[in-house]
């Protein structure tokens, strides 16, 4: 049981870390795509969508080339920050974060685009700076999209398989997240029973996550409805 718990905890750690470092850049990219017109916008858009359409194995291999111990970015981060991704849980988090990136960007971008620009203009006439107007008007109105993006991205990060196994391999206790553990168990002749337990917990986990996000969405709705009728 404790081995399974360890796997679940590791998966959660990887997924949280993945959200932790991809949320801010995803928000920045979503804002850029929603608000600005610039040369190369289509290219950026395509680049952001790429992990969604490429075979995950290709994305994982790309990460290996870039962030592996011999990769240019991998070496740079190792020398500058002492950060190493190769065969580490942090590498699994990086792979999960990259794979979840497009799922984060899209709902955030759509919800930012849906906020009437005239409201920020109105905030400006009331003395609010652009930053204050953004934080007090646009951000709260885009919050449901932000939450939807995080829930989607978290679910994707939790179950990521192809890019992770290609980039950081399948090392128990370090990079062996839920999907990877189930895969490994199914490969061995006597692993079926253990795999079934993990599968059951992953179904329960997914169900709990969906229910939680529904609950959050409903609470937000109710908060917005507060005082109505």
């Amino acid at each position, binding site marked *: 049981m404790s081995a399974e718990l360890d796997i679940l905890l590791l998966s959660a750690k990887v997924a949280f870390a993945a959200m932790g470092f991809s949320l801010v850049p995803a928000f920045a990219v979503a804002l850029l795509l929603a608000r600005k017109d610039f040369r190369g916008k289509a290219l950026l858009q395509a680049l952001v969508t790429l992990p969604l359409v490429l075979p995950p194995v290709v994305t994982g291999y790309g990460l290996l080339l870039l962030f592996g111990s011999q990769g240019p970015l991998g070496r740079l981060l190792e020398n500058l920050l002492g950060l190493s991704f190769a065969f580490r849980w942090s590498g699994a988090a990086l792979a999960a974060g990259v794979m979840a990136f497009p799922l984060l960007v899209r709902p955030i971008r759509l919800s930012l685009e849906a906020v*009437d620009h*005239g*409201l920020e*203009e*109105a*905030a*400006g*006439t*009331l*003395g*609010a*700076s652009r930053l*204050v*107007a953004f934080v*007090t*008007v646009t951000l*709260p*109105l885009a919050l449901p999209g932000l939450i939807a993006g995080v829930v989607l991205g978290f679910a994707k990060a939790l179950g990521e398989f192809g890019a992770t196994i290609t980039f950081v391999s399948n090392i128990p206790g370090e990079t062996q997240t839920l999907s990877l553990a189930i895969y490994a168990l199914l490969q061995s002749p006597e692993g079926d029973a253990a795999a079934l337990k993990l599968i059951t917990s992953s179904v329960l986990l997914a169900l709990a996550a969906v229910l939680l996000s529904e609950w959050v969405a409903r609470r937000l709705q109710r908060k*917005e*409805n*507060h*005082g*109505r*009728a």
Partner: protein
Amino acid sequence: MDALEVDISGSAGNFAIIAQFRAEPGVTGLFGRSGAGKSTILKMIAGAVRPEKGRIAAGERVFFDARAGINLPPRARGIGFVFQDGRLFPHLSVRSNLTYARWAGRRSGSRTFDETVALLGLETHLDRYPETLSGGERQRVAIGRALLAAPDILLMDEPLSSLDEERRREILPYLERIANQTRIPVLYVSHDTDEVARLADRVVAVEQGRVRAVGSAAEILGRSLDEAGGPVSLLDGLVTGLDEHYGTAFVQTAGGPVELSSQDLPVGSRVRLRIRASEIAIAMAPLDGLSIRNQLACVVTGVERRGAFSHVTLAVGEARLVARITGKSADILGLSAGKPVIALIKAVSVERSRLLRPDG
């Protein structure tokens, strides 16, 4: 408070904007047809659209000066703006909307929250959200929100145009109260004669991007049309007495005393009267045995033929009236400039447009 001085030119889509006028404290109506460029002029003053040339200033404070290279951003201009569509923040309660300028814009003025809420009758709506408000209530909140930003100048861009007639009638009294007590220049954009007549002290007439005329509401709107296409005359005057038994009021105007049927005009108040051209008849001499209460001695200043009708302009004291009679009547009476005539106006045809500021 300083007057707003505007002297700008620029372009708005496919026509040029050329505007020069002054807006003193009080309400200045920016009046013209839809698409005449009124809103663009307002946006240039607010800083949302950049004029090509010219200058916009309020006293010492220069908002825009093309030659000196000055172009203040909108929020540095101290301007309150009431948008046509309200633009309330949907995620904030009425209270938080009203106080937005204080907590997000760090603006505060002498006007208190309670005073403003009472002025606009919003006491019972403070905890509601914009979505649950009627169109009229929403616009009242938008006006209160702009007032509480302590603006030095208030710009209102057709604040009633998205409302139906009933809601409009509901809000106009609130706007009148604001018009009567404001100490800052208020620019009120509208294409509605009635609204401008009720609210504005002075009117700037805009046509195809250009300011065509600037003058008192009576001067400018006397030349404009009512909803049926007839001209409207405006007379400002002082309420001198009431006939409580019959429910009529006597108003001393520049054209002489006028009696109208009205119950609630306080003696001593200043009032603007509105008379449709088709409600004025013309006689060549004073008449007896007539139900018509008002007979004003006038001089014809012009006769203009409009199809089957003639528009007869009349000078009465310092005031001006326009009568609309058939071309046939005009010919039979032999009306021409310089002829003395009597204008006949029924007391029930004199509409009270608005109460005016006591100081004029």
